[in-house]
């Protein structure tokens, strides 16, 4: 296991990790709590002993909506995902039939792209091989 990396410039560092294909979360060293979205200090406490840790990559679906588009533009699923670490984030559910999605279903994260921008995306856990 590599040395913990302290979080100094949260927004830029998160984006850099993402560009390298890594989904990283902030953790408060003294308490082990997870912070997302990345900040210079833990919201509500101001604790700034934050380090980067690799996300477990698992979560559950909290809510979702199918954003409808005029063809040929494709519809897409925007979701709120509860991460295993306890944080919630917005994402997209990809490689799925929207009709098969259900709130509470397990999801798996990967780093992909949305229109050329690196982003954490999710797929339904069961279709992961």
């Amino acid at each position, binding site marked *: 296991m590599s040395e913990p990396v302290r979080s100094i410039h949260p927004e830029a560092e998160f984006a850099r990790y993402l560009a390298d294909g890594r989904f990283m979360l902030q953790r408060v060293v003294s308490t082990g709590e997870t912070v997302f979205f990345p900040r210079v200090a833990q919201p509500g406490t101001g604790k700034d002993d934050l380090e980067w840790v690799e996300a477990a990559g698992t979560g559950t679906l909290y809510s979702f909506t199918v*954003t409808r588009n005029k063809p040929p533009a494709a519809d897409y699923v925007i979701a709120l995902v509860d991460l295993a670490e306890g944080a919630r984030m917005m994402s997209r559910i990809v490689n799925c039939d929207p009709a098969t999605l259900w709130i509470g279903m397990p999801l798996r994260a990967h780093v992909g792209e949305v229109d050329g921008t690196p982003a954490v995306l999710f797929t339904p856990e069961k279709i992961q091989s």
Partner: protein
Amino acid sequence: MTGFARGRAAVVGAATYGMDSKPGFSAIELLAKASFAAIADAGLVPSQIDAVFSTLPEDPFSAMSVPEYLGIRPRLVENSRTGGSAFQIYAMWAALALDAGLCDAVLICYGSNQRSGAGGLVRSASIPFPYEAPYKPRNPTTSYALAAKRHMHQYGTTREHLAEVAVAARKWAQLNPDANMRDPLSIDDVLNARMVSDPLTVRDCCLVTDGAAAVVMTRADRARDLPNKPAFLLGAADATWHRNISTSADVTVTAASEAAPRAYAQAGIGPADIDVVELYDAFTINTILFLEDFGFCAKGEGGPFVADGAIAPGGRLPVNTNGGGLSCVHPGMYGLFTMVEAVTQLRGAAGDRQVEDARIALAHGNGGVLSSQAVTIWGTADTV
């Protein structure tokens, strides 16, 4: 809760302008038309206004540009930019500032040409949130759809319940000659309309219109000497829990659940005392969430509460009697229009949509994506 200037300030003038979206006006021109009309309605002249609390959608410096345009040199300005709830917050500060003697006559005003203005939907200058923007949410609709979907999951709320809200708003709009959408609308019409962002169809979403509104507030003693029946501010409170929907701890509960009890405590009333409710219905789910959060029903029971025409004309609770953001007007920020309608109802000047013997009205503003919530309670002279 003590300390609020209960009943010590009132709206004495109110006006709207340009709700029918005639092309050719800039936002500040629409704002000025409504403002001068509200000042005249109050029986005052512009030189008697010494405080201007204003928002324009795209002008971060409207606190200066609005007084400049109107030819007023205010002693006091306010420009909280919480979106659609800003105007309730202005009313709260206006009452406190008037009561403290910081000023004598406050103009609260807003204008937008977002429908007729060049380039279609006018967007207020807000910084994209780096942890949502890459996913291309189509806000505000995406955020409200996420709340609606979760509410349906958690409480069994149905698309029919959402449609009831749109139909009730339309029935009120049909009684309001100034409303934009007055064609008949059925539950099936809403359900079968074009899906925008599941579970919301285009008929679950507010209108995109132009419009301006303005009100003038003075201290209560002066209000009684002016030509209109005053609407006294009995309580006002706001609360802010988040900016972006992904940071909301529970998208089925809003900060209105915290603001409303504080406003009730100031006013010395409860939900059962309210004769007419003007709430910020940018989407059909809003009405259900806010009726719950205001305490008209328990959390999760908003769907059944609005069923069977319960908030339509002739129902158990008059809600959004002008037709709301869904059918009357929605020029980007709708909050001031709920206050104008509350004042109109308390004056007894609402024509065919008048709620009989309306004495206490709730006027609510919602800003951002269920983010900032502000609740004002207004009453006639006998409630003070």
